[in-house]
């Protein structure tokens, strides 16, 4: 048994098998960002609805490995309902955690914390961050 286990804890599998907030909407209040990782075929679209500084809704769709797909679902659950400021902070903390950089451990990552194990598989960091990057893109579009 090798140390891949950490990567596939229950929560990842749960979100992979039963993704939350999946499926896109046709609604101009949502900002849409589509990101691909051509080297491995991951292909994710994220939609965000912002209202009064709050993340009202996040939708996602796409194809990819379990890390990629589950993290889109986890991201949507984690950030929905947060203020933009908090969402940004959580997102950047999450990316720092993945990329083995210093990160603020006082920020509550909720379920997203399980992706900590990805940092030991550098080749998979992209898979775990692509949905979050796309989310950050939607915020930039909102500004």
């Amino acid at each position, binding site marked *: *048994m*090798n*140390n*891949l*286990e950490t*990567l*596939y804890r*229950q929560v990842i*599998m749960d979100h992979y*098998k039963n993704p939350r907030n999946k499926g896109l909407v046709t609604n101009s209040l949502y900002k849409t960002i589509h990101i691909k990782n051509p*080297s*491995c*075929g*991951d292909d994710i679209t994220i939609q965000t609805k912002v209202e009064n500084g709050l993340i009202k809704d996040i939708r996602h769709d796409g*194809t*990819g*490995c*379990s*890390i*990629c797909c589950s993290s889109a679902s986890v991201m949507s659950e984690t950030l929905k309902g947060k203020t933009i400021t908090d969402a940004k902070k959580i997102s950047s903390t999450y990316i720092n955690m993945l990329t083995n950089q210093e990160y603020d451990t006082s920020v509550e990552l909720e379920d997203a914390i399980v992706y900590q194990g990805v940092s030991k*598989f550098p*080749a*998979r960091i992209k*898979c775990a961050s692509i949905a979050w990057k796309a989310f950050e893109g939607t915020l930039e579009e909102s500004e």
Partner: protein
Amino acid sequence: MNPYELRKDFPILNDETLCYLDTAASSLKPRQVIERLDEYYEKYGVNVHRGVYNLSYVATEMYEEARRKVSDFIHAKFDEIIFTRGASSALNLVASSYGLNHLTSEDEIIVSELEHHSQVLPWQNVSHITKAKLVYIPLDSEGRITVENVKKVLSNKTKVVAINYISNVMGYITPIKEIISLAHEVGAVVVIDAAQAAPHKTIDVVDLDCDFLAFSGHKMCGPTGIGVLFGKKKLLDNMPPIEFGGDMNDNVNLYDASWKDVPYKFETGTPPISEAIGLGAAIDYLLSIGLDEIGKHEFKLKEYTVKKLKEIEDIIIYNESAETGIISFNIEGVHPHDAVSYFDGDNICMRAGHHCAQLIIKWLNVVATLRVSFYLYNTIEDCDRFIESVRNARDFFKSVGF
């Protein structure tokens, strides 16, 4: 050949936990090659052709000696060998120089879904520009290019047949000798992508009678940054250069210039000197072992592995009948990128993806495949470790719910 002895030549394998099964992407490099590169940089690392002093003469001799080695390696003539940046660059050279200048909307270019992007996309471009029609060979039920199916698409309109010698996904050997002969009957030229063949089997361009043939150094124990285009002299003589500049010209005037002879007219600028010399060293190395020995060894490892894989549940193999050392497979229900990380965790290097050959992946109707590819430094122990890891991976993924 003794892979256990050969392994000692590869510094990267000092890490005994490393199980490298990704040679089809790039091979590991033996110290014999690394040393030859160092020797160039440490002893005579100057430019070629241009100097008239002794060090430059030595560098030039070594560079051209590498060309001689390459030409001998595939039984070509010295001046039929053009050094390029890689196989992709070599295949593009044929398409840009031959293709764009010889084809019209009346003509047809035959390719296949079994091609690497570097063999199909340059011809898509030629087709878009010249309006020549791109025609696909129907693959047989295994995904092979057969002589029979080539006959179905070959016609008097065919001007170019661009196919692989060995597929990088399926590991099939294409019956190119028969295809070339048929193509010549209708007056077409044949461009062979030998990127996966040159490292693993003896190539004789005279016996094959092929018109163009391309391969890369880095897949055959050589350095990165070097590839080879072989072309028949009389074809090359009539093709325009596609890059212009230093060293490829003869006389230069304000508004026109004349070119050197083949192969130099296709090699502008300072060439990949250390890379050519390193490729020469790689050829020496491979020949000292024997290409056919290497091919046999890989095939044996592949046969052994396939047999064992078939005993594991949920394993789908896409190319069981391959004649070479490549296995494409998946674990049912597990995305290949999930699987490959499991193997990586066991320090087994292999690829997951479309292998720069999306058309065959689409043909297989999968999102991607896992691929292992063997080479001279792989052993039965590598196979066993890999098989064990597949078994564990399958069990693990099933256990977590895949």
